[in-house]
């Protein structure tokens, strides 16, 4: 339901009719399956949306050094951009250290974010294998998986994040 808004002009009360009763001219065009597939970039926490492909941290280190290190620093810290690993404090320290390892609740968010937004200088340029590999490397840098663990559509959602239960939804 659309909330009616009121504009008070001196004494006169003018109600702008809005929302609920309105309907449109019906100009939406049926979207093709191909378009929907091409545009559906979302990677959900349960793994829905993850593409084919795989990688491990060994391969991911190469990707990282070539495409990420410049901004994020060696081993995910000390660069001009966000710290990705190497937390020296936990979440109740002063100040706390919020990294993928200490803070992020879901491993799939790394894939979702890197595939849509990174590298900042050339977003959308990495192959799915490269994204899996660099995701594995970030998890490895945060001591969550081993250097050789294979990360793919099946294994990624199963990775247990240390802060998986650290969030309280304030929305009801």
């Amino acid at each position, binding site marked *: 339901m659309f909330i009616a808004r009121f504009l008070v002009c001196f004494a006169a009360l003018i109600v702008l009719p809005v929302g609920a009763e309105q*309907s449109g001219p019906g100009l*939406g065009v049926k979207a093709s399956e191909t378009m929907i597939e091409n545009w559906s970039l979302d990677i959900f926490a349960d793994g829905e949306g993850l593409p084919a492909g795989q990688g491990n941290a060994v391969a991911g280190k190469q990707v990282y050094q070539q495409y990420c290190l410049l901004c994020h620093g060696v081993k995910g810290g000390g660069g*001009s*951009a966000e710290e990705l690993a190497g937390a020296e404090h936990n979440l109740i320290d002063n100040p706390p250290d919020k990294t993928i390892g200490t803070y992020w609740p879901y491993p799939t968010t790394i894939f979702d974010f890197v595939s849509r*937004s990174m590298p900042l200088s050339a*977003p959308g340029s990495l192959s799915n294998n490269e994204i899996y590999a660099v995701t594995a490397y970030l998890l490895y840098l945060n001591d969550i998986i081993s250097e050789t663990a294979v990360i793919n559509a099946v294994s990624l959602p199963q990775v247990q994040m240390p802060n998986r239960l650290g*969030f309280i939804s304030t929305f009801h």
Partner: protein
Amino acid sequence: MSADLEKPVAGGGLLDRRLFLKKGLSFSVAALTVDSASAADWQQARSPWMNEPGEPFSNYGRPSSHERKTIRWVMANSMAPGNGVSWTPLHDLEGMMTPNGLHFERHHNGVPKIDPKQHHLLIHGLVDNALVFSVDALLRYPMTSFLGFIECGGNSNAGWREQPIQTQAGYFHGMASCSEWTGVPLSILLDEAKTKSGAQWVIAEGADASVMNVSIPLDKILDDCLIALYQNGERIRPENGYPLRLIVPGWEGVTHVKWLRRLRLTDKPVMARNETAKYTELLPSGKARQFSFVMEAKSLITNPSFGHQLAQPGLYQISGLAWSGRGKIVKVEVSADGGETWAEAALQEPVLAKCFTRFRIPWRWRGGMAVLKSRATDETGYLQPERETLIEQRGRHGYFHYNAVVSWAVSETGEISHVYR
């Protein structure tokens, strides 16, 4: 004038909010008389610009060249100039609306150069009809306007610091701006797409280089959200989402996705970076608040504020802004003695829900030290908290959703600084 209006209504020289409404306010005229002996140019019969034709018309107006200092202050990443924020100079503005060129910006990876002919909005997921809308098609839909604020969830975050930041009000609280947004109610478009049962969330995504995405509860989308095409009467500017942006009244800025290109109805949130790693507030317990969408009541005095200088003791008008993501502002109280006593300010009409509300109150500054504060109450009865209270509840490391009372200290010489008191 009636003498009782000049009677202080609270400590520190606060006067009745109706004072300026009364005629015949007697100033101490002598002090204000122009020194006629100096015969300055402006005392001649005609000023120079009255002796020659003025400038011709312009296709698109610009502010006076004398107002060049009124600008957005840009804070961007050195390695990535399109990653950062720019702030609305609230300390230089009056009224409730923000000029389009001064609306705050938060971009993750620059402003995309979108060709509106190539831009489309896809609505898909848990709907009977997955639909694509061209911008031209959307321009033919029934439109409605929302006058309201957009505030970044990270606005005012310097308030969490140990020491009060010394910077202009706008460069501290100006990740908030207010516009008239006009566009198509989403309820109309979702009606056309036919929402399936089980749909609870809408994932909104932008067409910028970061392809920003965020999950929003469907109930809110159906309640009052808009696909905005116009801002303050003109087509939305590129940095504010041209050709279309999502408007989510009262909720944190990150949900008002700019350059909107896709809405996916789902039964679960996507758990994007911007709803997990960011825009969540870490509490002292180590747990974090998530999906804390609503921007709670806030107010601040914009004039006088940091950087302003009171010229001499005398009568001033304290002016500021208040807003709440839960509805209308019903009351703003001002203190000139650091919170010992409070007086109610006048609210400028129109007072609208989820919209900037301008408040004002007269104040006689006698030349001593003073601490000016404001606190807002919204129609739900929520009172803007003091900083101590907020920190008691949330700790100091939440980063987002800082809405505590703002205090400006006035020195004996009329300088204004930011204090925590």
